[in-house]
């Protein structure tokens, strides 16, 4: 269980004040709260922590932004579960590779994984995981693979430019409303999820905060 100490609370108050100073859309204050000690309640708790770190490396978004220490939405759990159901063996292999390279910076590990073209299963599962974080939607690895190896000539692969064309949309499902409203593509756009703004009237007439305030880049 997470221990709520005086030190944690003080850090939380400080982080909240810092966020308030920058505006309400920025990094969740919970990302800045002192790190609690994880205690494995179930066998996959450790795997999910590994998954959080791998996800940060793959998405380019700091893991503490993806998964705040106090995470009321559980997006990490949802995406982990999607990946686990889709291909548990490949997922475990990816995680073990990551944990087997303790000296490598996350970005290096991610590069190894993404360029491992011999392992088609890993390649497309990784892409599914990246898209899940970015869009809050699950694009199945087999659908990404099918689309990737399809006819790549855009004038043929894109038969219609009609809006919302299903020919363009690779089949996908929104993982959950929370996964959509916490998806990180909006942070990269320095915006907010369409239909989920906690900003104030007129903000659109002014420049947004810098990208780093949305994504907390990896060091």
């Amino acid at each position, binding site marked *: 269980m997470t221990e709520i100490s005086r030190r944690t609370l003080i850090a939380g108050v400080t982080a909240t004040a810092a966020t308030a100073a920058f505006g309400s859309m920025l990094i969740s204050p919970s990302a800045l709260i002192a790190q609690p000690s994880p205690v494995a309640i179930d066998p996959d708790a450790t795997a999910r922590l590994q998954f959080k770190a791998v996800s940060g490396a793959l998405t380019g978004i700091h893991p503490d932004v993806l998964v705040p220490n106090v995470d009321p939405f559980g997006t990490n759990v949802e995406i982990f579960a999607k990946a686990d159901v889709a291909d548990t063996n490949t997922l475990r292999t990816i995680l073990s590779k990551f944990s087997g390279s303790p000296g490598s910076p996350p970005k290096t590990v991610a590069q190894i994984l993404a360029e491992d073209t011999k392992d088609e299963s890993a390649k497309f599962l990784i892409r599914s995981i990246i898209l899940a974080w970015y869009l809050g939607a699950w694009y199945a690895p087999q659908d990404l693979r099918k689309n990737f190896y399809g006819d790549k000539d855009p004038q043929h692969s*894109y038969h219609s430019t009609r809006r919302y064309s299903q020919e363009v*949309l690779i089949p996908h499902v929104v993982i959950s409303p929370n996964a959509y409203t916490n998806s990180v593509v909006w942070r990269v756009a320095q915006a907010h999820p369409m239909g989920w703004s906690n900003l104030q009237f007129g903000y659109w007439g002014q420049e947004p905060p810098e990208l780093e305030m949305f994504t907390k880049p990896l060091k």
Partner: protein
Amino acid sequence: MNDTLQKSYDVVIVGSGIAGGLVALRLGQAKKRVLVLEAGEPVRTNINAEMDRFYRAAAKVPESPYTPDLAKDPATVAAGRPTVLSLSNSEDWRDPSKSYLIQTGTVPFSSTYERTGGGTSVHWLGTCLRLLPADFKIEQYQPGWAKWPKDINYASLEKWYHNVEEEIGVSGSKDEQSYAGMVFSHDYPMPAIPQSLIDQFINTAISGLKLWGKDLKVRSTPAARNSQPFKQRRTCAGNTNCIPICPIQAKYDPTITLRDAQATGNVDFCYRAVACEIVVGKHERIDHIEYWPYDEQGKKIGDKPVSVFANIYVVAAHAIETPRLLLMSTGKGKRPNGVANSSGQVGKNLMDHPMYVPWGLLPQSKFPYRGPLSTSGIEDLRDGDFRKERAAFRVEIGNEGWNFAVGGDPNITTVDLVNGLNNSLVNPSYEALFGDTLVTRLRDVLTRQFRLGFLVEQEPDEKNRVTLSQKHTDGLGLPRPEVYYSLSDYTIKGLAAAKKTADAIFARLNATEYTRIPDKQDPTAIELPPNEAGRRERIRFMGAGHIIGTYRMGDDPKKSVVNADQRSWDHDNLYLIGSGVFPTSATANPTLTIAALSLRTAENIVGSLK
């Protein structure tokens, strides 16, 4: 609620959209007993269910928050409606198992509507442009076209425009809107919505640009969207989601008016009630209206339609369902042409604003996906002598990047960059990115995206019409609407001028264009006339969601369906209201004019009931 209905009313209204809702409100305030029949689902006490449906929808199309489910076969749906997804594939628009409308035209009719409590304006953009003085006198350019009634013009409607702006809450600037002869007796009730960074950038870039004798300027768009707290509703928080649903109702929608109407204590609502026959009695007066009730599962209730009686009847079911109801009302074959159709005009002259949408990347980040979907437009080309030759248009500036332009961004571009595809055309080397490289590339594209929308006037053409399908029915066994739709040379020349204008604006912006040239097989592909270089370009058009015409107003009973009061020439206790009465489409989004005419008619009805 149906069990508590009175048997007889002063007025029965078919349809609970903005037109029917405003009439119900005014009549209720005047202490008249009113029944509103709505074909679709009831207005809920909050929008949580709609928001949940929206968030969960893979394709966040205008219909996505609303029922019935989009994937159902229209033959099984009690109150069906056309959907964006039924227009998605090249073949679907002609497939009756996917498209509620039976389409027989040369090009798809690409606009959709809702049948639900609140009507189609549950997912409107909120744009509240007035028609121009010249729009009511189109005969100065086109002597052969149908005329608006002499009592309907800018001066006579100005009071009603103002009345509506006060009623629904419009934010705008009369100084910015005082162009092309428009004058304002009052200012808008709320200040204009601030312009986006994209608006500001385009306005600077086109400074001094003159086309067809007009200086182009970016003007803030008047919108039914709160720029300050209004009638107990919040100020806009820029959710960038006006279509399909504003999560905080800072944008007006007709459910607000329905709530106010109900609060008068004089208005009853009967939902899941599909009007199927207007029954004519003595002296050509409407005797009663029959409707089919159905249950939550869409199953018809009872073995015969229910009758409701009133002194006056108002049909406000929009420009496809209204003529459908009139044409269905044959009195068991005694009136083969239906009701209110002595002119033979019912169903004819279906119009829209065919929309050309070019998109591209600005040379610098201007941060779309922020603010209302559109906050400004270029309105200077809505009128001019060019209307003797070709259609006028307005230009809407989008704040939602390539969202609908490419079929669902940011998903399309993100999937391209992650999975090594190029549907968006921004990834020609088919790279598959991850990590900070992905962040950098995606950010660069998303923050520079923009799109324009050219809403083109459409020539009235009686070939374009709504009739009844002889073969296809809905879930209640009623004939579905059959639509023939095409674009005339006048309209296509307007699209060509829109393309030329877009090219000039893109050049001023130093923008990189990504607008896709459609295949010839694309049913919405239009071959433009040869340009100045003698080259024929191909573009595609979209529907604007502005369904206009089909029961036009006029001064001649032989050439029009209703008079200036929107009263049927044939039945003096029947009113047909909505954009179906517009003799011409002009270029303004039609809702404000629908609402102004509705309030004018409501006053007329109240007077006739005294």
